[in-house]
């Protein structure tokens, strides 16, 4: 393992020049795939994730269908070229787990009871990984579901917070995750202020945890604004043409 780099400089700035409570530059675009019912691409700095939603559609094999609501199937996958070392395209233990937690982060917002016996398939493909891929994945998937026209209570936005050299920071990237003390991905329903995903890797004191969660909530509100802008843009651009 290489030596630990300096993550916070004497001015209190992070290794990429960000302030502790600053997000990476975010780019969001909705409706990027024509074959999917809904799609979105989300970039958090160098992290790049695309999400596609198919359905509601018929579920095969039939015995998996639920009589009272739709099944949500979610696949989080990292492209072999997304990391520094080639990643085997076979789903790893980590990817299977992330597929599950992302599905559970989206389940509470989707009105699955409107489509009994059907399925909603969500595919999340990481094109470029630089930390925070699961949170970018949740942000993209929520937009793709909305773009597919599936009724939902609210959007979901996500961001990771962490502790680096004793400082609570927002939007942890790969380097900070690797050498930092803690990493905590959080997903929330921004309009209702409810948490749908929370994981913590590392150690935080109760006060640090509270501070980190507040910081995440602020970051999520910022991302939420960008999500809304991206969704509106798809329609307003056509409207201006008049």
């Amino acid at each position, binding site marked *: 393992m290489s030596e630990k780099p300096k993550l916070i400089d004497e001015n209190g700035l992070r290794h990429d020049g960000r302030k502790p409570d600053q997000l990476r530059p975010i780019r969001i675009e909705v409706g990027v795939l024509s074959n999917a019912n809904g799609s979105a691409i989300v970039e958090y700095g160098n992290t790049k994730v695309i999400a596609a939603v198919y359905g509601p559609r018929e579920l095969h094999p039939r015995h998996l269908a639920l009589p009272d609501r739709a099944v949500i199937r979610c696949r989080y996958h990292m492209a072999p070229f997304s990391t520094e070392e080639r990643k085997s395209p076979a789903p790893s233990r980590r990817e299977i787990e992330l597929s599950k937690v992302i599905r559970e982060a989206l389940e509470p917002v989707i009105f699955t009871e409107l489509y009994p016996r059907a399925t909603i398939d969500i595919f999340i493909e990481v094109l470029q990984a630089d930390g925070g891929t699961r949170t970018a994945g949740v942000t993209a998937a929520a937009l793709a579901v909305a773009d597919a*026209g599936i009724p939902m209570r609210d959007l979901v936005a996500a961001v990771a917070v962490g502790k680096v050299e004793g400082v609570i920071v927002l939007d942890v990237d790969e380097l900070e995750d690797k050498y930092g003390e803690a990493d905590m991905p959080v997903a929330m329903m921004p309009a209702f202020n409810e948490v749908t995903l929370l994981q913590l890797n590392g150690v935080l004191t109760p006060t640090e945890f509270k501070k980190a969660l507040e910081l995440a909530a602020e970051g999520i509100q910022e991302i939420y604004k960008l999500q809304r802008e991206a969704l509106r843009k798809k329609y307003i651009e056509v409207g201006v043409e008049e």
Partner: protein
Amino acid sequence: MPKVYVKNRELVLPGDLLAEGDIEVTSFLIYKHASKYYSTIIGLVNVENDRKVGIIPLEAPYVPKVGDIVIGLIVDLGITNWLVDIRAPYTAILNASDALNKPFNPIQDDLRNYYDVGDYIVAKIQTFDRIHNPTLTTKGKGLGKITSGKVIEIEPSRTPRVIGKKKSMLNVLTGETGCEVIVGANGRIWIQCTNEDLEEILILAIKKIEQEAHTTGLTDKIRNFIEEEKKKRGLS
């Protein structure tokens, strides 16, 4: 005290607060939580007299409704029924007894003599509920197999704009081009024209409606569009 927070024809997104208090809601796409009403979808709101709130979705999958006229594609044959793709989350069933005007005997007769795999049909949704797949009927005026013309597909949520208020848009489309048009509620549209140029113009016009479904004054825009295209091709 009822309160409406949105303007008429405003673009709303999932989770947007629409109204509060004693409000009449005209759409199942509005979700009530603690006496507040929220949007669940990307759509345009309809506000009437500050009391009535509804949503017209801009994106929505097709969900069958009893009585809808749809254009279906035969995908499979059973012993006495056809399976029909109607672009919904559920495959539709067309029973021989709902298609033919005589009793059907599978020993003497073959379903392929009537509709074969790959045929398009105009059909009506006869029954549909949460437990059963939709069933269709082709008995009735204007229903049955499509033997000529073309079928084009658009987003199902945009079909109301292709028809328009009191069929205004549909009248423009048929009147200006002289083509026959049947709009299926599932976003499939059957057209038949006398002339290839007119057919092309009609398809372009329908695609334009699909793309600009959320804008206002669309009917006049489409009328001008068709006239211009006709001039370009020297048809008028």
